[in-house]
Every structure is written in C-alpha cells, then in structure tokens.
C-alpha cells in the first residue's frame, strides 16, 4: 500500500471515530487539532488501525509520534518488512 492509500484509510478511520471533526485530514494533523481525539479516543484509534491495517505497534512507537505523517511513515515501514 502506498502513502496515499494509507492516508485514505486513516482518513476513513478518523472520520468515523472522530465524527464531529469537519476539517481536512492531512499529514500535519495531530490530536491537538481534533477535539474528540483525547486519551480514550487515541486508544480507540490505535486499536482500529491495528485491526484494520493488520499492523502492531509498541507503546514506545506510539508515544514517539507527533502527527499523522509520522504515523504513516511508521505504518509504511512496518508494511515493508
């Protein structure tokens, strides 16, 4: 899956989970931009990504991410292994 495909999948998850967010979903997006993206929302988001995209993350990997673009890079790396 290429980067555009990953972004499209993540956008689908974000639109579904954080359904009050109407703004753009770009690589710069972070939890600070989305009111519903709180700690519980983040837990749900991580679980959804793992199940939908068939990847597994570590706690350290998730803690190191600051925006969607970095998450996409991590997913790309895991998918290429």
């Amino acid at each position, binding site marked *: 899956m290429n980067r555009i495909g990953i972004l499209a999948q993540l956008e689908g998850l974000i639109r579904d989970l954080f359904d009050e967010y109407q703004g753009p979903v770009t690589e710069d997006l972070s939890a600070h931009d989305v009111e519903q993206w709180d700690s*519980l929302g*983040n*837990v*749900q988001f*991580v*679980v959804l990504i*793992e*199940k939908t995209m068939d990847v*597994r*993350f*570590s*706690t350290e*990997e*998730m803690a190191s991410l600051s925006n969607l673009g970095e998450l996409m890079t991590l997913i790309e790396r895991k998918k290429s292994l």
Partner: protein
Amino acid sequence: MSPSNRHIRVGDSVEHSFTITEDDMRLFQKLSADYSLIHTDSDFAGERGFDGVIVYGGLLLAHLSHVVGQHLPGRKGTSASWSISYRAPLYVGETAALNLTVTNVSVAAGMVEGRYKITCGDRTIAKGQTQSIVPAGMIDDQI
C-alpha cells in the same frame, strides 16, 4: 479460566453462572426507577406472549460488570465500551451462564477486547462486545 495470575492473551475466557431472584428484580426496580410492565406485571407479560416478567437487561449488564471487573481483565481494568444485543428473554429464577472470551489485545493501546454471550440452556439471551483499558504489562501479545 481467569487470567488473574498471568498476562492476558487472545483466547482467555471466563464463565460465570447466575440466577436472578425476585429480590434482585425489586432492588433493580428501585435503583433504576424503571417500572415498565414487561418487568413488573406478569399478566401484561403474558399478554405480550412471554412466560412471565422479563429480567431487566440492566441486571444482565450488572453480571457482565462482575465478570469484567473481577475476572477479565479484572480489578485493574477500566471499561471503555460495552455493547449488548438482547436475543431472548430471561425469566426470574432461571440460571444463566455468561461466557466472556478475549478476541483482541493491543499492547500499544493497553486495550483488551472481548466477546460475550449469555445463555440459558440452549437459549441465547444476549451477546455483545467489551473493551477494557489495562495498565502496561498486563497484556501478552503472543497470539
């Protein structure tokens, strides 16, 4: 079996049997202030085609709360979501069994997901899903 002495992993399960009594119904009626006839009036329940008053769904969830809070994931967990689909009535005095099985774990999210089914004999009374957040170190990610 209860995984209380080791890490939680996919496939872990626990079964809990319970019987709802008249006293349980009265307590829940008072607690919830739900006096719907289907739960309080056996004549009405009979007219609706049931064999008696139907056990409150909230009492089924109370037993789910027991299983989640005491066994799987246990006392260190925090529930994030539950769903329930009622499939058949449970009547007062009947013994039901609640079986909860872990279907997914996420180390990164600290999440334990499960599916449960409540049965009475060969009747499925209800089923649904649970999500619980647990402290780091409680999950075994080896599926």
